[in-house]
């Protein structure tokens, strides 16, 4: 509760005073979450980093630009930044499809770039879980990540995804069922 209030106070400062220090604190709170959210969908570390940077910049611009011409009211930072992240991912794939680039799988990246073989060994379970998550369809990936990794409430997820909480519950239930099936086959 206190964390939520602190977050709202920081956002209020950004909205009303374009306070960059407050935005820096929001960055600290959200950078890992947004990175994970993006990385789940784009698969390469570099893409995830680029898009994460882009998302934070776009969010800042969205908050601080004059919004007299828009009806949208900012109610929560998480709702806003996740929406921008989703849109950025869509933009990323559109761009990629034009460039006709081959997308690399997670495990390939894990084994190719950087010297992290040892780390992969240690976090084998995590890597597998992540791989399973990626096998789910986009809609399921998002709700599972937001609910069980980021530990957001159903209400928060419904704000981000733009669906009613009941629909989110149903999606989550189905996603988890699917994930279990996949896990049973894998583990």
């Amino acid at each position, binding site marked *: 509760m206190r964390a939520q209030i602190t977050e709202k106070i920081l956002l209020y400062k950004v909205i*009303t005073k374009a306070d*960059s220090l407050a935005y820096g604190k929001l960055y600290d709170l959200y950078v890992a979450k947004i990175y994970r959210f993006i990385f789940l969908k784009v698969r390469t570390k570099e893409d995830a980093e680029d898009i994460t940077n882009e998302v934070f910049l776009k969010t800042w611009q969205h908050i601080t630009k004059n919004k007299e011409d828009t009806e949208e*009211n900012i109610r929560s930072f998480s709702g806003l930044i996740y929406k921008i992240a989703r849109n950025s991912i869509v933009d990323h794939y559109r761009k990629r499809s034009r460039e006709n680039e081959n997308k690399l799988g997670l495990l390939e990246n894990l084994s190719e770039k950087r010297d992290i073989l040892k780390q992969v060994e240690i976090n084998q379970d995590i890597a597998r879980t992540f791989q399973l998550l990626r096998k789910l369809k986009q809609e399921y990936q998002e709700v599972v990540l937001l609910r069980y990794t980021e530990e957001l409430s159903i209400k928060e997820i419904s704000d981000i995804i733009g669906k009613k909480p009941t629909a989110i519950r149903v999606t989550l239930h189905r996603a988890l069922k699917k994930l279990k099936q996949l896990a049973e086959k894998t583990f």
Partner: protein
Amino acid sequence: MSKELKKKLKGLKTRDGRVNPDKEWVIKSKIDLMNSISNSSLGVNEKVGLKKMNSFIDLFVPKEFLLYARPLAISALAFVIVVGGWVAGVSASQDSLPGDVLWGVKLAGEKTRLVIASVGGSKEKEAGLHLEFASNRAEEIKEVVAKEESSKKVDSINTAVDSLKKSMESASKSLEDAATEGMDGVLAIAANTDKKVDEILGDLKESQKVAKDGGVEDANGINKVENQMKEVSNVVEDMSVKTIGVLVSKTEDKNIEEGVKTEVKEMIKTQVGKHLDKVAEDFNETKQVVQDATNLVASSTFYGVDNNGVQNIVSSSTLSVNTLEIVKDTEQKVVQAGVQIEKTLSEAKDLLNQENVVSAFEKMKEVVGTQKEISAVVVEAVKISGTGVSGTNTTSAIINPITTSATASTTTSTSGSVGTTTIQKL
């Protein structure tokens, strides 16, 4: 399985690995971001006033609350408009007078105040409001009388008089109720009554005077207004007497402390003293009316203002024979009443000095009754004698010649005087 899976999903963020960003990258990225936004924030204007408020509401007030708050806010606004309109209407009606369109709104506003006061159940407040409204009516009567002549003037005064009487009756009822509850309410009502009765009687007396001095042009109208003023003054005085009666009854109540009783007795002494003074004053006025009438009818010929407002001969000695007899008879009654009044007043004063407030109050009631009786006799006599003199059944017909004949060059002879002494106030 499900638990384990959830645990692993949760572990995605807690353990280092490819699913989390590199720490070095996070730091570098933040520096880059801060540089970018610091440059872009230069052109951003700080939000002020209402916009700040809107942002605050958006962030800190739950959306669900706002959804419910909207119909509530609309209802509240409607309520404010209705009540505000009502309050504005009542405020605008404060200067209205009987006969005005808004006077009804003013009375309705007063009734609303009474309803609110009655919710609290304070008889003291209720009585206070009734007295306040009665005082308002007395002031209105004064203003109506002083207004330009109109066909509705006497009717408007009549309406206000009726309302004043009702307020006094209600105040009287509240006093009765308060008397059964306790001493505090009674004392407060008594003090308030004493003050308000003085104000109301003062206004009514002034209204009567203004009506006679031209406030009401029609002689019949003057007569009506005078009668109304006398009648309503009696009602107001009755309230005052009743209040003293309640106080007197409390002095004999064993449940009331001696200290309080002493306070009550002082209050009774003051109020009884006032009434005795008023009786003396009223009797002297009554006596003067008869004296003037005696002077008038005794003259063989006298001048006065006729019904057309012209100073002229309005009567002759032959026409005033019956009038003379009536006045002589009245004169005798006044002399007798004067003796009685003087005696009773003296006894009442003595009793007051002896702190015997109960007996003093009884004497006061007696002398007030005597004064009222003789006053009624004189009014009646003046009426009858007025018919014999001017041919109109009005008091003013006889009073006006009396006042104007003093300045006119007429020969008048008095047949005597109505008593030689003037009753002194306390």
